[in-house]
């Protein structure tokens, strides 16, 4: 007997749910719970991680990320404006920068600014400075593209209205166009912060002292010292979520707010 379209859709849903349940059950059965409980979910032995995972690890992750974001945001804005410039040299420079820093792994950038640049110029940078510059340089490339899209999404009439009131180009940019562009790109910009938070872990290539550990390094250190297998990494991972999930919620709030203000 032929089914109606609605019946077919319902059957299809049941089949999909069934496959999902079977897959989960199979995974649970296949797991070696005995080993897992000592080497991954061994929460009995992680006591010594506290409170330093928060006072050192979380704190340093937040510091590296915040400094990197500051550099990335100002650099990104500069690059976005260069990319929209009528002066070709600026456009080429910005395009070259963006393609380069988006194209190479962030790890290489950390190595370059952690070892290469200090060697080349005979300077010595502390870890915080390297994290700030490396994260910032990479973030600037991504943020530049986001901001450029935001600047272009501001209607042309806004610039015309501002210029008609006698504002010079730069003043119209600063007071009228850029504030609106930032509102438009707030959700994708939050995304950049989340990516940056995770990339801050790459600082481990520099060889850190204990007080410079950020979350991932702190977790890796725990693997060797606590005898709880990979459990410390799991804890470190959980603390990333403590940062990133509120950011996501914040981004969603911005998004729904800007959706509401649109006519």
């Amino acid at each position, binding site marked *: 007997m032929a089914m109606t379209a609605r019946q077919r859709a319902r059957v299809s849903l049941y089949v999909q749910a069934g496959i999902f349940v079977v897959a989960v059950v199979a995974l649970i059965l296949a797991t070696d719970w005995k080993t897992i409980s000592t080497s991954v979910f061994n929460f009995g032995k992680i006591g010594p991680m506290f409170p330093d995972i928060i006072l050192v690890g979380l704190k340093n992750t937040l510091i590296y990320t915040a400094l990197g974001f500051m550099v990335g945001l100002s650099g990104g804005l500069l690059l976005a404006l260069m990319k929209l410039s009528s002066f070709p040299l600026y456009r080429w420079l910005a395009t070259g920068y963006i393609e380069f820093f988006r194209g190479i792994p962030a790890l290489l950038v950390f190595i370059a600014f952690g070892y290469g640049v200090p060697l080349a110029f005979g300077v010595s940078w502390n870890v915080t400075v390297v994290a700030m510059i490396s994260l910032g340089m990479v973030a600037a490339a991504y943020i530049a593209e986001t901001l450029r899209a935001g600047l272009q999404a501001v209607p042309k*009439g806004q610039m015309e209205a501002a210029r008609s009131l006698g504002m010079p180009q730069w003043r119209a940019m600063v007071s009228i166009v850029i504030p609106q562009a930032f509102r438009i790109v707030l959700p994708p910009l939050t995304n950049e912060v989340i990516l940056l938070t995770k990339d801050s872990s790459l600082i481990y290539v520099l060889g850190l002292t204990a007080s410079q550990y950020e979350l991932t390094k702190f977790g890796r250190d725990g693997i060797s010292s606590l005898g709880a297998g990979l459990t410390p990494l799991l804890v470190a991972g959980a603390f990333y979520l403590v940062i990133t999930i509120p950011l996501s919620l914040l981004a969603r709030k911005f998004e729904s707010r800007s959706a509401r*203000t649109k006519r």
Partner: protein
Amino acid sequence: MNDVVQNADDRGAVKAAGVAITDLRKSYGSNEVLKGITLNVEPGEVVCLIGPSGSGKSTLLRCVNLLEQPNEGSIHVGGFEATDPDVDIDKMRRKVGMVFQQFNLFPHLSALKNCTIAQTKVLKRSESDASAVAMRNLERVGLGHLADRFPDQLSGGQQQRVAIARALSMDPELMLFDEPTSALDPETVGDVLAVMRNLAREGMTMLVVTHEMGFAREVADRVVFMDGGVVVEEGVAEQVISAPTHNRTKEFLRRVLDPTHIDIAE
């Protein structure tokens, strides 16, 4: 409710500038949209530009404050020669208020801030002086009580009146209107036209691109009919609208004044 202040009869209350446009030409690539326009507007005069879309009237208006760069010819506004390559564009534009079809209010600023930002940033007025000027102009367009609203909390007609107040807050000597009522709901058109009528009475020089023939007939000193990038006919408003002499003007007016008319003979 019509909350526009009426009957303000103080002609000469504003300092007004004239405009002199001579043999103005403007092309986009090979497409010549202005083919030698000569037009004079006396200080305090109200001139309406009418004509079919694509006739170049908006482009002409936008050339006056250099939103479009003319290719040839000259424009004098107040004491400025707009077409001089060394002209201080920003200084000139302070004397020229512009009102757009799409309002172009700044959506991130309240109505009041829309009216103060250029005053403080360009004219370097203090925040309190600028606010006082802005409030006076918002009241002038009947919206003093909505000064704290943001553009998206205002109707189209209210937004356009804020846009007019914003332009007036710079103390312009000439106002340009680019189809100010074309994007409005019909019931809010009247409020905007009333504001413009008052402005005309106060002696502001106004150059208005419009399809509102009633407004042109009543308020304009002169009406200029453009088609295909040239001025076809110009004269006293009543005469051009009621008794046009050129065939193209007649044809255009018949279509605008009686849009439901179907020409079977053609």
